[in-house]
């Protein structure tokens, strides 16, 4: 594994050798099991521009389609007014439409059956809860046939998600019209909305709670711990992504993407990976303060 890391990191090899061979950059207790952590971005500037930060997800999936690693990708595309919608994508160029984060619910897994019905191997991009759902479907495939054909799961770091109406309400409270939004981002503890006139509107993440989807309060998974590979921007320098590679297949794919000059990499030391750990930990402890902690089943013998 270290060998592959060296190969991936390339010229940074020297800094990796010797000194801290046993030290792992991230605590698996917090971010789940993984093989390697990298800082990456798309080599193609066009992809980077369309993407949220480094465009890693888009570039990696386009590479997977190009190489025939998968036949189709299930991802969320942006419709009018920033409303996301899941779509099955087979053309790498079409992936650009799916690039960038959308801050409301896109039921990506709802298209998985259709994708599996039509294709021999499928990749799915999703939030941590969606990746958990796919893994559950693979282990208990009650109604979903051919789940073995899910060849790649790409998880996106996620603190919380919004129902579309609540996103509109949030923007309204920020005095922003959804049609004027150029870009949305969660970065450095803030929800940042950039409008078309170049202005930046921000809200601290802490205040998002009342707008977010309630089920997110109970979620303990920040980094999509069950994905083949998880991508996010937290802890990465501007314009870069943190890439947590968890399985062998994903590792091979990332490696081939680097070799084919689709992704460029950087030494993880240049980022601030502590932030990933911190947000993971926050999410794992948040549940204790949520409504969930007081949730009880209804039962005739138990007063409400």
């Amino acid at each position, binding site marked *: 594994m270290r060998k592959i890391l060296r190969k991936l990191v390339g010229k940074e090899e020297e800094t990796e050798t010797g000194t801290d061979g046993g030290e792992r950059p991230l605590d698996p207790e917090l971010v789940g099991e993984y093989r390697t952590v990298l800082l990456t971005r798309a080599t193609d500037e066009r992809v980077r521009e369309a993407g949220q930060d480094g465009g890693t997800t888009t570039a990696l999936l386009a590479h997977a389609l190009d190489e025939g690693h998968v036949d189709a990708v299930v991802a969320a595309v942006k419709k009018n007014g920033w409303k996301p919608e899941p779509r*099955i994508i087979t053309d790498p160029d079409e992936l650009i439409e799916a690039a960038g984060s959308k801050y409301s619910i896109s039921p990506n897994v709802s298209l998985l*059956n*259709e994708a*599996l*019905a*039509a294709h021999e191997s499928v990749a799915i991009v999703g939030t941590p809860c969606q990746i958990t759902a796919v893994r559950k479907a693979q282990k208990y495939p009650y*109604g979903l*046939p051919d789940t073995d054909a899910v060849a790649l799961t790409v998880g996106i770091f996620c603190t919380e998600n919004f129902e579309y109406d609540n996103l509109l309400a949030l923007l309204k409270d920020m005095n922003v019209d959804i049609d004027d939004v150029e870009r949305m981002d969660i970065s450095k503890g803030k929800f940042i909305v950039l409008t078309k006139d170049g202005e930046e509107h921000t809200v601290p993440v802490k205040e998002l709670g009342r707008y977010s989807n309630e089920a997110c309060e109970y979620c303990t998974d920040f980094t999509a711990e069950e994905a083949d590979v998880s991508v996010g921007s937290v802890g990465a320098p501007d314009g870069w992504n943190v890439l947590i590679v968890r399985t062998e297949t994903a590792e091979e794919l990332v490696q081939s993407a680097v070799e084919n000059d689709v992704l460029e990499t950087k030494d993880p030391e240049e980022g601030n990976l502590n932030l990933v750990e911190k947000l993971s930990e926050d999410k794992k402890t948040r549940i204790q303060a949520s409504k969930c902690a007081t949730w009880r089943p209804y039962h005739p013998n138990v007063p409400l």
Partner: protein
Amino acid sequence: MEIKTVRIPTGTPGDIHAVMEVSDGVIVNAEVCSSTTPLAWETLVLEKHPEFAIVAAERVCAGCDASAGLAVAEAIENALEVQVPDAATEAREALNAANTVRSHATSLLKSDLDLDADALYTVIKAAKKVLHALGRKPDHPPAITPGGLELETIPTAKVENAAKEALETAEKIKDDTASAVDDLKDEIQAEMNVETYGEPGYKADLTPDDVEIVPPDEFYRMKSALELANNHVALVDGNPTLVGPQARKNLTDHPLDAYTAKAEEIVESLEKIAETSENLDPNADVKTDVEYTSGEGHAAVEAPEGTLLVTIKLRNDRVDEALMVTPSNVKAAVAGRVLKDLEEEHAPTVIKALGLSGRCLTH
């Protein structure tokens, strides 16, 4: 002379019984009926939404599930005078063919022929792929809906590959079946002298006017059969008639030719699927909007085990009246005649070959 009632395991759900008058080990007279508790499809869909009638029909019997759903959908469309896009009809035809492949292969597995199970499962896998691709699930395909199929695009490439890859195995099954049937024919001497109905293809032109449905107490003459029977039987043009693969392939010399016909239909169905998917545009429109009004319509489909007729009367978006004539309903009338003059011990093998399901009979 002795009257015997034998429960005949057919490998399909439900209980099939043969009531036989036996003399010196030879069947002189016989009646075949089912004691299975009726599902009562016709009653349970009343006052429900037409879509439920499709979903429910697919759960009558796993053998012909997709075909039953298709027949109901087509009957609803005829009642509403909806024109289904051509591509949808083609895709449905392929779906029906895939259902035929799966049903026949399963039936051959359960036969007394001792065929290569691996080969049959290879073919079943291919059929399941097609059912999944065109019907969105390999069992009880739910994409069947009034107005067409609920598909965004038609996965023609996957369908075509699946069908073509299985063809070679299907050819082998066909040869193996033919020789196995010939061997078994030497053992079981039988003749069939029956009327038949059915042509190769997807839709059949059977109408409710051609069919007479007889309640059990009017059809069965033997006391034991009368006591057991929970099923109606259907006569075509007033006669007990054979439907299904044998009738469609015109192979009616011997009851065991049902297997020969099934094996041949597996090959032909796979060819049909490959051909259809080759010509289909993946992006063709396969669904028209349906507006629920009142009306009455009927449709007949060549289901794996035989012609399946559905009549449905709609009152806006509710089912007002429904009627289903299943392949087993029709075949039950003829099954007694097929047993005649047969040695008693061969009755189970022959009834099994006819492809009766108790659940189908008492839908």
